[in-house]
Every structure is written in C-alpha cells, then in structure tokens.
C-alpha cells in the first residue's frame, strides 16, 4: 500500500501538472509540487519505519525496500521535499525576471515529478532489469531539465549527458545480463529478483562474474560520476536549474551507486570480496585525485560543486572498497553529502539569481548582499570539506582510519587530495563571501532560505546525534559489505 502510494503520488502530480494550461495556474503547479512532496515524505518515513520494524517492506514480489533502500528513500523524500518547495520560489523569481515563461515552469514540474518517480522506482524494484530501466528513465526525464534554458552550452551539456549516460548504462545492461546467466541456467524464468540472483550467484563462473562487475562498474559508474566516466557531470550540474543540480548531485548519484552496491553483493558471492573492493578503491581514489586538482583551479562555482560531488562519490567508493567499519562510514557519508550538497546548490541558486553569473570572479561579497544565503553557503562549505563538528569529518576520519591499516598508500594519497580540496574550496569561497561589494543588501524571501535552513538543521542534528532507527538501518544495510 505504502509503496503503491509513493509511486502513484509523483505520477499523478505529473499528470495533473500537464493539465494546468493557463498562466494563472502557477499556484496550482506550486501546490501540486508541495502537496506531492509532503505525501512522499510522510509515506517515505512510514516505509522506513516499517523496514526498521520488520527488516524489509515488500509489495507483491515486485517491489521491496530493505535497509539500504530505506536509507535512500529517506534521503530522497527529505531532499525532494525541500527541492520541490524551494523550486516554487526559484521559478517564480525566474519568471519575474523574464528568464522563463509559464510553459517552461509547467515543463519543469512535470519532469521533476517524473524524475522523482523514476528514482523511487529504481530504489524499490526487486528486478535488476527494471532498475536499469528506471535509471535510464532518470536520464530521459532530466535531459530536458539540463537543457532547460535552451542556451547552446546547456544544449551541449544535455546532449553529452544523454549520450554518455546512455552508452554507460548500455554497458551496465550487458553486465546485468551476464549476472542473470546462472539464474536463467538454473531454469528461473520469472522476474529475476536480487534475492534470486544472490541465491544463484555462487554458481556464476568467476571469470564471467569479474567481467560482468567491470561492465556494471563502468556502466553505473558513469551515472555515479566516477572518473574517468565523469565528463558529463560538471556540464550537466552547472547548466541545470540549481534545484535540479541539487537533486542530481544529492540523490541521482546515490541511486546509481545503489545499483553498484547491489551488484557488488553478487560479485562478492561469486569471486570473493577483494575483487570488487579493489575496483571500488581504484575508481574511488582516481575520482578524488582528479576532482581535487580541478576544484583547486576551478573558476565556476556550480562546476566547483559538481567536481565536489565527484570527489565525494570517490570517498564513498573508498569506504565500500575498504569495507567493514568504512562501509558504515561510507553510507553515512552518502547521507551527509546529500544534505550538504543540496544546501550548497540551493544557496548557489540564490547567488545566481542575484549576481546573474556562475563565475567565481563575478561573485564578490555575498555576505553583504545576501547575508542569510552567505551564512548557509558557508555552513555548506564547512560541512562538505569535512570540518568538525560536521558529520563528514567523522565519516572521512573513519574511512581513513580503516584504510590506513589495509591500504596505507591509497589512504595517504586520499588525505593529500582532501587537504587540497579544502584549500581549493577555501580560496574560492572566501572571495565569494567576504570580498567588498558595492551592491546593496537584497531582501531574501522565506521560500528561498527556509528549505535550506531546514536542511542545515537536519545536517547539524545528524552530525551530533544519529537516531537509533537510522543507526539500525545503516548497520543492517552495510553488514554485507
């Protein structure tokens, strides 16, 4: 019932949004977005509560939410709700500035609901094939959101996103089919579920399992944004509207990572844990290194945040690559990253609306023009770079603590890169926030800052105290890694 409700809600909201035809219907579009996100939030929390109580929550053998899925559902409904709320104010401001018109607003909300639906579907389906379809659907639903402003550079970003991700996901599809081989050989002809595949994974030929996992890692790793398959990500994140960048970075990357983790379990059952761990560590460390150097020399603050996402996906990969306590920290890192990156992208949206530029050198003295946004952006910066007492400090420290014993060289390189990221971020953010600016202070609307404040509150609260229910979910979710 709950799963049906959480899947139907964005679908119905999308259909109803299509029906809104007149410019006066802007209020209806906003109402639909907020109402849908409230329903999704309540249902998402109820699903997570059911998973805490029973270990999983299923629907007719077609959908099932386990502990890992519940964590992702919680992130999605939280970030999704704040993004939907923030979007109403953001788009209203863009309409007022005549950047976009009513039809574009309607297109935005229709696609936003479909994007959320695809992500819910990907998380909850029991079938790897349907998961692939849903993740491909996220590409299709967001391509028009990336080209939203119809500028040549936005069109180029969307085209690159569509082609690179489609090719990547096709390779992931090939890996998926290879993993299905033992289940089909065993005479299984129904809907191949993760559980069925896990039951047969031990009989998978080790060589095929290794090839399949490499295909999956390259395929879904493209969607995760891991280096060297990351080239679509900075363009897409910087050209999309800021709330969409927030969802792309804060949630879509996690959903793709979920696919990698599901297949990792299958590969581990076939060839042991060390193979997948080494691959995750390889992609993780090169993602951190490449992102760190580019962050240091970055000139565009939205691309800066995009490269930061690549870096953090690398850190999460390292966490699951190291395994054990680092895997726990990796999943916790995923939660903190989603919250912190959403804070940063939404704050960046306010900065972009006021300064009309994404170039760092053209944004000076935000603290004197947008004081609340500046504080929120600073908090996001401190959180994302792992400054204590924010949770990312703890998770990075935990991952490094595990890694230094088993992979000391990789860990030391990662530490160097993380330091470079902090220095790079600091030199960009200080100039943006504190330099002199003759502009007068702009009155910040509640709808543009309250959703970010709520995310900041959740981030700080989770940094100092992890509720037992969430701790239980993370422990259960990472016990197999």
């Amino acid at each position: 019932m709950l799963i049906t409700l959480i899947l139907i809600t964005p679908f119905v909201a999308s259909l109803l949004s299509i029906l809104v035809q007149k410019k006066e219907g802007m209020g209806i579009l906003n109402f639909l977005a907020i109402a849908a996100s409230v329903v999704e939030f309540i249902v998402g929390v109820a699903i997570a509560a059911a998973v805490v109580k029973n270990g999983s929550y299923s629907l007719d053998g077609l959908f099932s939410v386990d502990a890992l899925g519940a964590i992702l559902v919680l992130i999605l409904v939280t970030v999704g709700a704040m993004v939907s709320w923030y979007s109403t104010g953001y788009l209203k401001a863009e309409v007022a500035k005549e950047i976009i018109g009513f039809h574009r607003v309607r297109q935005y909300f229709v696609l936003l609901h479909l994007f959320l639906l695809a992500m819910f579907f990907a998380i909850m389906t029991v079938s790897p094939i349907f998961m692939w379809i849903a993740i491909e659907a996220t590409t299709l639903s967001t391509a028009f959101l990336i080209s939203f402003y119809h500028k040549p550079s936005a069109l180029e970003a969307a085209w690159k996103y569509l082609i690179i991700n489609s090719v990547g996901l096709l390779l992931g599809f090939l890996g998926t089919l290879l993993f299905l081989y033992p289940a089909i050989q065993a005479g299984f002809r129904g809907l191949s579920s993760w559980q069925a595949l896990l039951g047969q994974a031990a009989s998978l030929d080790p060589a095929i399992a290794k090839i399949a996992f490499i295909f999956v890692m390259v395929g879904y790793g493209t969607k995760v944004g891991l280096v060297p398959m990351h080239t679509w990500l900075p363009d897409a994140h910087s050209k999309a509207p800021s709330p969409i960048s927030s969802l792309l970075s804060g949630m879509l990357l996690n959903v793709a990572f979920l696919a990698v983790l599901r297949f990792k379990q299958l590969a581990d059952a076939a060839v042991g844990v060390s193979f997948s761990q080494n691959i995750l560590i390889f992609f993780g460390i090169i993602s951190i290194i490449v992102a760190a150097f580019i962050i240091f020399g970055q000139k565009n603050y939205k691309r800066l945040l995009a490269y930061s996402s690549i870096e953090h996906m690398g850190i999460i990969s390292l966490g699951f690559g190291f395994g054990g306590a680092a895997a726990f920290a990796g999943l916790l890192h995923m939660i903190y990253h989603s919250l912190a990156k959403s804070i940063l992208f939404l704050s960046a949206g306010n900065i972009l609306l006021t300064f009309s530029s994404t170039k760092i050198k053209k944004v000076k003295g935000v603290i004197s023009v947008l004081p609340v946004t500046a504080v929120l952006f600073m908090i996001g910066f401190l959180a994302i770079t792992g400054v204590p007492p924010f949770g990312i400090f703890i998770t990075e420290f935990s991952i490094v603590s595990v890694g230094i014993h088993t992979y000391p060289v990789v860990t030391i390189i990662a530490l160097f890169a993380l330091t470079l990221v902090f220095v790079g971020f600091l030199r960009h953010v200080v100039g943006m926030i504190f330099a002199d600016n003759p502009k007068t202070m702009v009155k910040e609307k509640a709808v543009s800052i309250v959703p970010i404040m709520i995310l900041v509150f959740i981030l700080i609260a989770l940094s100092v105290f992890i509720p037992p229910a969430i701790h239980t979910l993370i422990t259960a979710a990472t016990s197999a890694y």
Partner: protein
Amino acid sequence: MVGVLSLENAIVSFAFSTGLEQAPGPQLGIIFEIALWVVIATVFASMIYQQFGSLNVATMAELKED
C-alpha cells in the same frame, strides 16, 4: 545515435543468442525505454540543428562558458 542503437541491438542479440532473454514484462519495459530514447534523442538532434545550423556535434566543442 546510430552508434548507441547499434550497441543496444548488439547487446539484445547477444542476450537472445545466449539464452538470456527475459520475462515479457522486462522485455516490454526495455522496448518502451529504447523507443522513448529514440524520440528524445531525435528531439535533441533537431534542437541542435536549430541552434547550430548543423548536426555536426564537433561545432559544440568550440563553445565557451557563459
């Protein structure tokens, strides 16, 4: 686009030739997905043609940041 669709066809052919075909539900889902992809890619191709006056995507490499 032709390259992506060729890869798609090759993978599906591989799946059938090795007995990895799926239940009807997932197969319909995959067909729907590919059909939708073709529609969206075609829309993008027409947008690129309108914007750049050519389907040669190499012209996009000369774009500079705004």
